[in-house]
């Protein structure tokens, strides 16, 4: 039997939890479930939805645009992820030394992180202008004729990757810096007594002890890069000649341009599945290369 005390406790818990939980259910929980259900229907929001079984998924499987978007998304990830991680790690390693103006440098690298993607994409669209852009002007100073960037199907994705690396370096760097600061100094001191040189210290201490951070950075950057959208939408809208269409753009187009709610939902679940599989594989592999210390 629940006594007076129990009822009171339940009331207290409800007051604390319910505002958040109700909203969470309405805007996150139920939408996740409905999206899954929707993915087995056909619905244009005008007539009533009809159940079509797996047909959306089968259609997606035969949809050339979908495969092209998947390919471009993967191209983006392959170009973006190693670049942003390598540059951020290098800068974090330098900033972790005794450096003057540390706060200034960290702030400078972080400015693009807080700037909206729309603003960044517009600035870079102008920088990458084939004729009057600053990037090609800079290249011409060192004797290189720059490409037409966003107007050239084989360079447009490179332009988007460059811009994305530029925007995210500060964010990833801050994560690496936090990881580096968590490595106790005593490890390095002990290694020095044993006569270890700089490279040995980097390979034997820094990299292994940083591996949990590296893993975390890898997981969240990968999840985020599967969802690349804003920059593509502003910089190329998927062009030229469809060379930069990405998955989220497909979802957006089907849902909000062609009113195919079911089809778009199915595509969003494929995106979720990809994110899930990749995260799952990384979780499984982490034990092999991550050193959580003792």
């Amino acid at each position, binding site marked *: 039997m629940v006594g007076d005390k129990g009822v009171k406790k339940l009331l*207290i818990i409800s007051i604390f939890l319910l505002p958040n939980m109700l*909203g969470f259910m309405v805007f996150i929980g139920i939408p996740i479930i409905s999206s899954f259900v929707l993915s087995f229907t056909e619905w244009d929001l005008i007539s009533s939805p009809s159940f079509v079984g797996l047909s959306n998924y089968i259609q997606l499987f035969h949809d050339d645009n979908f495969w092209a978007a998947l390919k471009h998304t993967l191209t983006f990830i392959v170009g973006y992820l190693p670049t942003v991680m390598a540059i951020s790690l290098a800068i974090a390693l*330098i900033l972790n030394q005794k*450096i003057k103006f540390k706060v200034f440098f960290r702030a400078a690298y972080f400015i693009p992180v807080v700037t*909206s993607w729309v603003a960044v994409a517009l600035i870079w669209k102008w920088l990458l202008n084939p004729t009057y852009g600053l990037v090609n002007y800079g290249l011409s100073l060192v004797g290189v004729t720059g490409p037409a960037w966003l107007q050239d199907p084989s360079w447009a994705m490179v332009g988007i990757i460059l811009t994305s690396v530029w925007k995210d370096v500060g964010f990833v760097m801050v994560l690496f810096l936090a990881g580096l600061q968590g490595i106790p100094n005593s490890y390095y001191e002990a290694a020095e007594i044993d006569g270890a040189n700089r490279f040995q210290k980097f390979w034997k201490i820094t990299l292994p002890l940083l591996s949990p951070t590296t893993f975390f950075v890898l997981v969240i950057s990968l999840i985020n890069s599967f969802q690349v959208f804003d920059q593509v939408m502003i910089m190329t809208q998927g062009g030229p000649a469809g060379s930069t269409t990405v998955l989220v753009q497909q979802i957006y187009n089907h849902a909000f341009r062609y009113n195919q709610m079911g089809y778009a939902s199915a595509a969003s679940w494929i995106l*979720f599945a990809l994110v899930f599989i990749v995260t799952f594989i990384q979780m499984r592999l982490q034990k092999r290369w991550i050193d959580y210390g003792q």
Partner: protein
Amino acid sequence: MDNSISQTVRKTLFYSVLVFGALIMIIPFLWMITTSLKTRGATLVLPPQFIPDEINFANYQRVAEVFPVGRFFLNSLFVALTSTIGQIITASMAAYAFARIEFKGREVIFLIYLATLMVPTQVTMIPQFILMKYLGWLESYRGLIVPGIFNAFGTFLLRQFFLTIPKSLEEAAFIDGASHFRVYRQIIMPLAKPALATLSVFAFMQSWNSYLWPLIIVSEKAKMTLPLGLSLLQGRWTTDWNLMMAGVVISVIPVLAVYLFAQKYLIQGITLSGLKE
């Protein structure tokens, strides 16, 4: 001797890399500003002029004439502030329950929250849109604000912080007959100020910079936020970069101001949320 030379070489190399990198980060913003002060003709000159011959602010005036940038700005501010406040209140209360009150099923509910962190927003976006449509919340502030209040991230971040506050503090208060509401308001919340500040900065920036959600639910200029309004500039002036950059400057300056004030909390928050689990 040898050591100090290699030390100097290394330091020089480090500073060169940092300065070069910082220039790459800052020049695009300077370029944005100088472009916004040029005439259209001056943007189409080779070699590019860093400091225009003739500085004019007319671009800002023209952008403001055609686009209600003031309105966009106020919309963004209103939406970002209200959704941040909503998130702080609801998330902190839930986090208090998760961290400080023992009850059956607590861990399970919290795990469900956590699991949703993995679901891409694109999955919830379509049903959310349909919901907005049926509630009649399209083209409204409610539609822009309310869904943004709820996500697992804020609750998670605050719960982790609340867990680090020693229990002994509130035990004394309970003995004195304080209620959970008093402990929440007078002990936990004041102690959690750094975490609350962090979450506020995060929530504000996220809302301020958000593009996809406003794009989906708003098409009237009167309700547009800055990023969405800015994307419209592009359709109108494809080659008038001086005008476009003036619009971009207007949207970038406020958030940079917030950033410079709140830098500490933002970076603290990234490290907190990222690495302590």
